[in-house]
């Protein structure tokens, strides 16, 4: 896969439902009621029950590795959190290659990622990953 600065990742839309939020919360063993109980979440001032951060990180990682492939090794995921991800508001993922370099026999790529809904940016940040150098430009 040829990767250059400025490449855009294919867009991805996640239809955020109650089930998506609850599944992620329980798979990440996060039992905080704000992630499964709409009444609790609203009493805390949130517009609805909302996705937990572990799930957001999981989708950001998936978004990048769906593009980069199974040889990718993620080095870091750095996100800033904004608007909540709540049922009925699809999350739109977009990404762009910001840096391409080499380190420790790997090609190192930094991708900027944005996941937004109609409330604003849910998560913005960067993911750094390595791909094997050999054959990486096939």
């Amino acid at each position, binding site marked *: 896969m040829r990767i250059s600065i400025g490449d855009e990742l294919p867009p991805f839309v996640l239809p955020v439902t109650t089930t998506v939020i609850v599944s*992620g919360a329980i*798979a*990440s*063993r996060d*039992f*905080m009621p704000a992630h499964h109980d709409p009444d609790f979440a609203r009493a805390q001032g949130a517009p609805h029950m909302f996705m937990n951060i572990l799930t957001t990180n999981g989708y950001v990682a998936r978004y990048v590795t769906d593009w980069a492939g199974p*040889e990718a090794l993620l080095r*870091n995921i750095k*996100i800033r959190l904004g608007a909540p991800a709540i049922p009925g508001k699809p999350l739109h993922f977009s990404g762009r290659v910001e840096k391409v370099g080499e380190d420790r026999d790997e090609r190192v790529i930094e991708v900027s990622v944005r996941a937004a809904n109609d409330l604003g940016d849910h998560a913005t940040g960067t993911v750094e990953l390595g791909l094997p150098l050999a054959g990486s430009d096939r």
Partner: protein
Amino acid sequence: MAECDAVRESLEKYVGKPMGPPSVAPDPVNVPMIRHWVDAIDDRNPVYLDEAFAKTTRHGGIVAPPAMLQAWSMARPKIEGIAERGGAAMEITHDNPISALNAAGFTGTLATNSELEFVRYLRPGDHLSTTNEVESISPRKTTGLGQGYFVTWVTSYKAGGEVVGRQRFRVFKFDPRTIDPSRLGSAR
């Protein structure tokens, strides 16, 4: 503006100290929990479950999804009373900046940043332990969520004595009584 802030001064003692006690993950990294995660996130990267395929890659075998790092170390919850504890999995008894800020009226919490660093991917059998440290506490800030403090801590994840990952986490602890409705929106 260098005005005296007694609350902030009372927090200084926490900087550089543990956020909470060290912990050991309830279970080692294991395939059933990986499968549960992969299905929940609908992540079909074959290196997480397909041993035969994973062996053909540089991973050399099944690895855990890196974003699961924090999930392995989540405390076992006591479900009864979890809402009354504000969502805390267990009763928080240790003294840290979050409990101190709650006591001072800064009861609101908004997570603002997460930085996960992966030193190496985890494999089934790796058993995580964690330590954490308060990295910084900001001066009092006024934001769209009122007045409060940004508290940042770093969790180190170890397996077999080596650090395998880190997470830097930042929350804004705010006093809901200081929210200015005309600025309601964000902690920026």
